[in-house]
């Protein structure tokens, strides 16, 4: 009974995703042909649509993993400060002037260190709200540090960094898309690999140990996977907020299950769908005003998070 309902949602999500992807690719132009040998299509639209797709799924999956790891529905890459760890890495890389690959590696190290810091602080703070406060403090500390770095940066690099910080899905080039695709494959495969452990782990850490789950190994997997996902998206598209926290919660409510495999598939479908919708709206309004992607995701995400907090406090 429950199963068929969640299957309908997944099929519906697939349809929605396809529709939104095509709409995004067409950029709301109805006299559009996929077979034309168009420069704009190949060098601008296809990379942007694919980047949005990859970003959406990477952020949603990392959010899901973090929420299970911290057993906290309010966890997510941006709210826990992992994105700002990646941002710090990017800031350092940009100011030092290393290339695209260097930026990604630097973001990866930043994200990894910040996730480790969170795990470490979890030993001392038990309540979910305190953990969020630690995350928020971590990000404001980082923002301050980045601000200081900016004072000493050269003009051109500063401009690049500021634009990057607003978050944008349109600057991704083809070679970066390969990195995106590679990260997506790695993240999806490893998430499927640990999905059974995740299902049992979501019922409590002690429960999972007693059933034979290797907790330490599972934690390292989650940290590694989320660090890759957050680092790649942050390095190429800037810190995109709210997708990571909103989508897993949405999927959990729609599918009504703890089965991590189903939740994972849900995140892979609805994550890109939501981000394609947000970026699609930006494309639609493009002629009138230019919006950064973060303001769009926040418009959807912020009310949603307030709703979850209110539901939790009840």
């Amino acid at each position, binding site marked *: *009974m*429950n199963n068929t309902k969640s299957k309908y949602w997944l099929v519906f999500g697939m349809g929605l995703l396809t529709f939104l992807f095509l709409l995004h690719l067409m950029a709301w132009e109805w006299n559009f042909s996929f077979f034309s040998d168009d420069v704009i299509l190949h060098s601008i639209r296809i990379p942007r649509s694919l980047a949005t797709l990859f970003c959406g799924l990477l952020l949603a999956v990392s959010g899901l993993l973090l929420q299970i790891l911290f057993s906290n529905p309010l966890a997510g890459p941006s709210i826990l400060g992992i994105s700002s760890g990646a941002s710090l890495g990017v800031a350092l890389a940009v100011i030092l002037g290393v290339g695209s690959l260097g930026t990604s590696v630097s973001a990866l190290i930043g994200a990894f260190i910040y996730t480790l810091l969170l795990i470490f602080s979890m030993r001392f703070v038990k309540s979910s709200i305190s953990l969020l406060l630690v995350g928020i403090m971590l990000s404001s500390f980082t923002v301050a540090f980045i601000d200081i770095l900016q004072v000493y940066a050269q003009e051109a690099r500063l401009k690049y960094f500021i634009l990057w910080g607003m978050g944008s899905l349109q600057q991704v080039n083809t070679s970066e898309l390969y990195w995106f695709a590679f990260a997506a494959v790695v993240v999806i495969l490893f998430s*499927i*690999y*640990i*999905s*059974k*452990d995740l*299902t*049992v782990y*979501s*019922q*409590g850490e*002690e*429960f999972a*140990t*007693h*059933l*034979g*789950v*290797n907790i330490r190994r599972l934690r390292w997997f989650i940290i590694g996977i989320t660090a890759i996902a957050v680092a790649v998206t942050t390095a190429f598209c800037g810190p995109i907020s709210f997708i990571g926290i909103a989508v897993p919660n949405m999927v*959990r409510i729609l599918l*009504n*299950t*703890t*089965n991590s495999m189903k939740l994972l598939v849900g995140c892979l479908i609805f994550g890109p769908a939501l981000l394609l919708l947000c970026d699609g709206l930006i494309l639609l309004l493009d002629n009138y005003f230019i919006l950064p992607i973060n303001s769009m995701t926040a418009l959807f995400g912020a009310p949603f998070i307030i709703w979850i907090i209110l539901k939790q406090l009840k």
Partner: protein
Amino acid sequence: MIQFNHYKVSVDNHFLFEVENFSIEKGNVYYLIGKNGVGKSTFLKSIINFEDKTEGIIIDRILKQKLKQKELAQKIAYVPSKVTLNNFTSVEDFLLMGRYPYGSPFSGFNVEDKKRLEDVIQLLEINDIRFKFMHQLSDGQQQLISIGRALVQEVDYLLLDEPTAFLDYYNKKRIFNLVEELSREKKMGIAIVSHDIDYLLKQSKCIFYVDSSTKKLLLLEQPFATNFENIIEKIYQ
């Protein structure tokens, strides 16, 4: 058979009590009683804890240290006094988690897993609540499902940590009867930590207690129904 030879129970390097000579045999039920904080729950958890390498436990003639984590979970299951609730876990999903030690990362649930689930649902007569969510159930039902999960896990030994702590008299009797039935018919070896001394004494069960002066696990000698006050004094001093 789980054998204990001079097994020392400790928490964070703090010695609690010693289990000199005790064994959990298939087809028997053992009740453990004692003061709060004496370390009964710690004892049960340390048996199932894979990372606890303390010497002195032999499980089915194999040293515990030689078993892999999943092998241990295929032999012994631990049932806490209250399950951790997750608002999105249905009864069926919860029961199927018991199949985790038998699965591999990419495999789904096979025919045997499904059959095992159906058997347990039949045995516990819970067909009407199988699609409900865990948090919607009463404490008694939750406890029943929690034991059901251990049965789906197909273990030989069951460790129950105060299974009746949150239950009313009717459900208490139901759980105790179920436990006796499982040991009789499924030939499971069961150890139960309990505080229902008066109930257990009335039924003259096989009771062990932690003696706080010698710090040892001892058998409560029979016949004991004659002098209840003495026993209470002996255990709780």
